[in-house]
C-alpha cells in the first residue's frame, strides 16, 4: 500500500523507510516496514501497544538501529548517520526536558551545543528562543523552570526545543499521551495549526485513533511489526484493507460468519456476499452506522432480522440496541421516526456497508 503511494511521490519524498526490521533478542519488533512520507506531510503511526510504532519512530530518529533495512531523508541514505547528524526534532512522550535548565536554556540548547563556527551569536539565540516561545504560545516564560509549568506547557516547550534546531523532520512520540482529555483536544488543534503554518514534515506516534484521524494527512496502521494499511483518514476509516484495521478503527463488533454460495450466513439468516468472495469462515465487522432499519417493501433477502435488546430515548433521537448474536456486544442504531419497535421484537435491518474479511 505504501509502495503504491511512492511511485508518484518518488522525487519528493522526505522520509523513506525501506524494509525495516528490528529484533529485540530474537523477538521481532518490526517485520519489514516500508513507509514514504512526502515533504510537509503529517503522518500518524497508529497501533496497539507493542505494534512497533515507537520502534519505527526511534529508528527513523537514529535512536535505535535497525536489524535490516534502510532509512532515507530525501535522497540521502541516513541509515548510518548518528542521531546528532540527522537533524531531526524528536519530542518524547515524557518530554525529557532538562530540569536543571530554564525554559529559555532548554529551547536554546540545540543551538548552544553547536560547534563555534556554526553557533549563532548570543543575541541571535536569545531572539530565536523568544520567537519560538511566541510560536508555541508561551511568550516570556524564558526564566521559568520546567517544574513550574503545567503538562501542556511542558509539551510545548519540548516542541519549541525540537524546532530550534531547524529539523528536517519532526518526530513526535505519543505527543499528548500524558495529558488530560481537554488539554489533548486543544493541543491537537493547535498542533495542526502549527503544522499548517510551519510545514514541517511530521511523523507522530499515537494509540489514540481519534487523534490520528483528526490530525494526520495520512495514517499508517501498525500491528505486530507490520504496516497493515496506510492511507488518508477517510480511506482507512471507510475502506479498511485488512480484518485487523476493520476491527481496530471505529467501534466495530466482530461477528464470526460463514460465506457459502454467495451468501453471508449468520445463524439461520443470510445476506448477499460481495461478488467473488471466497467461501468459508469469515469475519463481519459491524459498526453502528452500517446498520439501517429496513424500509417497508424491501427485499427480504437483502435484510437481516435482529432481536431488539432495548430501546432508549436520547433527547430528540431514539436508539435501539440490537443483538446480532449471543455473547456479542449489542449494536446501537438510531431509529427513524416511523419505526418504533419494543424490547423483544425483531427489527429488519439493511447493511449499508458490508465489512467482510476472510477469517
Amino acid at each position: 500500500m505504501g509502495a503504491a503511494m511512492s511511485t508518484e511521490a518518488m522525487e519528493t519524498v522526505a522520509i523513506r523507510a525501506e524494509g525495516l526490521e528490528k529484533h529485540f533478542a530474537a523477538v521481532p519488533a518490526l517485520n519489514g516496514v516500508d513507509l514514504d512520507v512526502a515533504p510537509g506531510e503529517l503522518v500518524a503511526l497508529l497501533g496497539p501497544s507493542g505494534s512497533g510504532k515507537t520502534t519505527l519512530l526511534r529508528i527513523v530518529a537514529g535512536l535505535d538501529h535497525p536489524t535490516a533495512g534502510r532509512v532515507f531523508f530525501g535522497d540521502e541514505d541516513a541509515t548510518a548517520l548518528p542521531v546528532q547528524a540527522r537533524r531531526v526534532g524528536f519530542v518524547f512522550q515524557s518530554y525529557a526536558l532538562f530540569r536543571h535548565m530554564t525554559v529559555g536554556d532548554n529551547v536554546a540548547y540545540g543551538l548552544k551545543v553547536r560547534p563555534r563556527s556554526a553557533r549563532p551569536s548570543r543575541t541571535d539565540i536569545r531572539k530565536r528562543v523568544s520567537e519560538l516561545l511566541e510560536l508555541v504560545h508561551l511568550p516570556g516564560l524564558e526564566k521559568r523552570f520546567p517544574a513550574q509549568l503545567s503538562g501542556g506547557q511542558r509539551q510545548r516547550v519540548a516542541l519549541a526545543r525540537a524546532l530550534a534546531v531547524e529539523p528536517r523532520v519532526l518526530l513526535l512520540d505519543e505527543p499528548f499521551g500524558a495529558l488530560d482529555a481537554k488539554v489533548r483536544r486543544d493541543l491537537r488543534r493547535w498542533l495542526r495549526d502549527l503544522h499548517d503554518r510551519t510545514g514541517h514534515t511530521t511523523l507522530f506516534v499515537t494509540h489514540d485513533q481519534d487523534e490520528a484521524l483528526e490530525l494526520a494527512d495520512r495514517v499508517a496502521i501498525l500491528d505486530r511489526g507490520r504496516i497493515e494499511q496506510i492511507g488518508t483518514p477517510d480511506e482507512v476509516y471507510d475502506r479498511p484493507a485488512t480484518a485487523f484495521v476493520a476491527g481496530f478503527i471505529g467501534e466495530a463488533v466482530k461477528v464470526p460468519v460463514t460465506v457459502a454460495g454467495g451468501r453471508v450466513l449468520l445463524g439461520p439468516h443470510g445476506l448477499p456476499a460481495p461478488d467473488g468472495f471466497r467461501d468459508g469462515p469469515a469475519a463481519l465487522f459491524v459498526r453502528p452506522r452500517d446498520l439501517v432499519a429496513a424500509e417497508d417493501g424491501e427485499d427480504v433477502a437483502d435484510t437481516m432480522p435482529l432481536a431488539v435488546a432495548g430501546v432508549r430515548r436520547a433527547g430528540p433521537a431514539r436508539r435501539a440496541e440490537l443483538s446480532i448474536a449471543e455473547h456479542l456486544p449489542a449494536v446501537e442504531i438510531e431509529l427513524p421516526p416511523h419505526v418504533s419497535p419494543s424490547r423483544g421484537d425483531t427489527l429488519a435491518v439493511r447493511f449499508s456497508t458490508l465489512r467482510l474479511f476472510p477469517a
Partner: protein
Amino acid sequence: MSAAAPARAPWFRLRQPSALPGFCPTLGFALLYLSLIVLIPLGALVLRASGLGLDGIWQVATSPRVRAALEVSFGVSLAAAAVNSVFGLLVAWVLTRYRFPARRLLDAMVDLPFALPTAVAGISLAAIWAPNGWIGGLLAPLGIKVAFTPLGIFVALVFVGLPFVVRTVQPVLADLDRETEEASASLGATRRQTVFRVVLPSLLPAILTGFALAFGRAVGEYGSVIFIAGNLPFRSEIAPLLIVIKLEEFDYQGATVIASVMLAIAFLLLLTINLIQAWSRRRFGHV
C-alpha cells in the same frame, strides 16, 4: 477596631496545620535521640575543653604541632574526598550503566571498606604500599614513597571514603531518565556535551552529599591511617592520633581542646557543603 475581629493566624507556629498527624511525637523523639547520642557527649566535650579558658584553648590550638596535625587531617581529607567524588562517580557509572559479568560481585565489593575493621585495612594497605610491598615496590625505583608519608594517609582515606560516593550517586544515576540524554543527542550534542551539560548537573547534589560523607568519615578516620602514616610529628601525624597521644600523657584538657577544634572546623565545612548542596538542588530544579 470592631469587637468581632476575625481570628488572625498567629505570627509564629511551631507546626503547619496538616492532615497527616505525627509531627509532635516524631520531633520529640528525634530531639531526645539526638540529645542522647550526639548533643550531650559533644556538649560534655566542649565543656571540658572550656575549663582551660579562651587563652588556654588558643594556646593549645595554635601550638605548632597541633596546627600541623590539623592541617594534615583536614587537607588530606578534603583531597581524598575530592578524588573519591571523581572516581566514585566513575565506579557508580560503570555499575549502573553497563551489564557485564561479575558486575554484582564488583557491586558488593564496593561496600567492603565499610565492613572491614579499619586496622586490618591499614595494615594491608601499609604492606602493599610499603617500599618492599607489591605496589610500593613498583613505585620505589621512581623515587615515590607512599607508605609512611602523607601520601599514605591519602591512600587510606580514599579507601575508606569510596563507598560513600558510590552509594549516594548510584541510585540517582539509576533513576536518571535515559530520554533526557537521548533528547540531548537528538538536538545535536556530542556525548561529551551531554555528559557535562545534562548528566553531571543532575548528579551534582548527590555527588556533593557523597563528598560530604566521605570527607566526614576521612576526618574522623583513625585505625587505618595510623598503620600507614608513619606518624611523624609535623609531617604525617593526624589530629585524631595527637588526641590519643595527649590522652596517653594524661593531658585530658589538651585532648578535648584538639577535639573541640576539630569538631568546630568539621561542622563549619559540612555546613558549607550542605549550603552549596541546597543551592545546587534549587539551582538544578530538584524542587
